[in-house]
């Protein structure tokens, strides 16, 4: 089985506390290319993964300013420059009445920026992912917690990392995450077969 076929190793946990501990110890062990998965945002988990404060706020601020600027200039230009009308004796540049739309556009653009930048930074939409090859992983969105150390990590070594994960006291055995879904089990692919075979059993448990 070639390395490239392996995305990473996946350990399953049942409680928030466990995943927090596991992540901390993995980080202490020097692993970086890893990610934790939980059915809801667990406080502190991101910190354990050593994530910095997101860049989204600055993006949103910038977008908001753009929106407001565009909003006001659009009104100023069309009312006072392009086709100025005497409307009810109001001056061409009646800036006070341009404020509402300026604000609305600020919010509109900023909101789009928020949502899109979140998607963009998270690399979403991303409907196909190696993790989805793992049947157990479907419980990440329900009631289980997972820690995945990815093959790209410099310290990664299939056997050693597996043993390391075993030491974290996961629920059930370590799961190898293949890059590509194996449809039928190859003759000499014990691990994988078990991995896929285990799935349903686990789910029923």
């Amino acid at each position, binding site marked *: 089985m070639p390395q490239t076929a392996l995305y990473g190793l996946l350990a399953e946990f049942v409680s928030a506390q466990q995943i927090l501990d596991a992540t901390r110890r993995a980080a202490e062990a020097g692993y970086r290319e890893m990610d934790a998965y939980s059915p809801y945002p667990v406080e502190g988990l991101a910190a354990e993964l050593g994530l910095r404060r997101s860049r989204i706020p600055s993006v949103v601020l910038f977008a908001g300013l753009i929106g407001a600027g565009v909003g006001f200039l659009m009104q100023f230009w069309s009312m006072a420059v392009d*086709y*100025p009308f005497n409307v009810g004796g109001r001056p061409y540049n009646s800036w006070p009445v341009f404020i509402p739309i300026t604000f609305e556009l600020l919010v509109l653009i900023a909101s789009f920026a928020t949502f*899109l930048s979140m*998607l963009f930074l998270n690399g979403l*939409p*991303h*409907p*196909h992912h190696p993790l*989805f*090859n*793992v*049947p157990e*992983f*479907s419980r990440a969105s329900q009631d289980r917690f997972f820690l995945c150390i990815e093959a790209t990590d410099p310290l990664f070594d299939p056997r050693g990392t597996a043993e390391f994960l075993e030491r974290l006291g996961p629920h059930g055995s370590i799961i190898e995450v293949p890059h590509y*879904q194996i449809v039928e089990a190859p003759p000499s692919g014990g691990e994988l077969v078990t991995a896929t075979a285990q799935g349903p059993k686990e789910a029923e448990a």
Partner: protein
Amino acid sequence: MPQIFPPAMNIISKVTLFGSFVLAAFILWVCLILVRSSYGTGTGVVHVQPVPFSHEHHVGVLGIDCRYCHTSVEYSSFAGLPPTKTCMNCHSQIWVGSNMLEPVRESYRTNRSLRWQRVYSLPGFTYFDHSIHVHKGIGCSTCHGQIDQMPLTFQVPSLLMEWCLECHRNPERKVRPREEVFNMKYKPPANQLELGRKLVKEYDIDDPATITSCSVCHR
């Protein structure tokens, strides 16, 4: 087997999501182009006329003055369309046999008008006045193009409001000396802007704010 989508979906989904914005913009752009196209405005379309009257021949070759047929252009909103009688002034002598002119003679005999297809038709809520434009030094060719070179007459400008505004916002670009109004050969001089400003003052053309007021054209 949880994996639902093939790997390609990652790209496809991203493209659709972010590309939809581009698509919307593109569609809008197409619409804006379409209304300005000759399909929307009728520019350059030649209508079938009862008689294939050629301005090229009558104006370009024979050099008949516009006002010979369009008599009221100088003192009425309506330029005037020549009554059959005007045609017959000459065509009772020349081309008397031509089949092409039979409708004209027939009209004259039977006292029934020729029914021309209008070439320049403005919407009814727009009130255009020839006399004032002619008087303020706007040449025939400014709106009607080189009609002296048209075998069959067609509409040259778009007649869209934005086209009217071009001139009403800065008349100095189009205005010419009064004596040149009916001159089809007239070419704007190099110092058009300078001359224009002078003429605008001289002909007492109102400021853009006034001649772009709605009620100037819409009542």
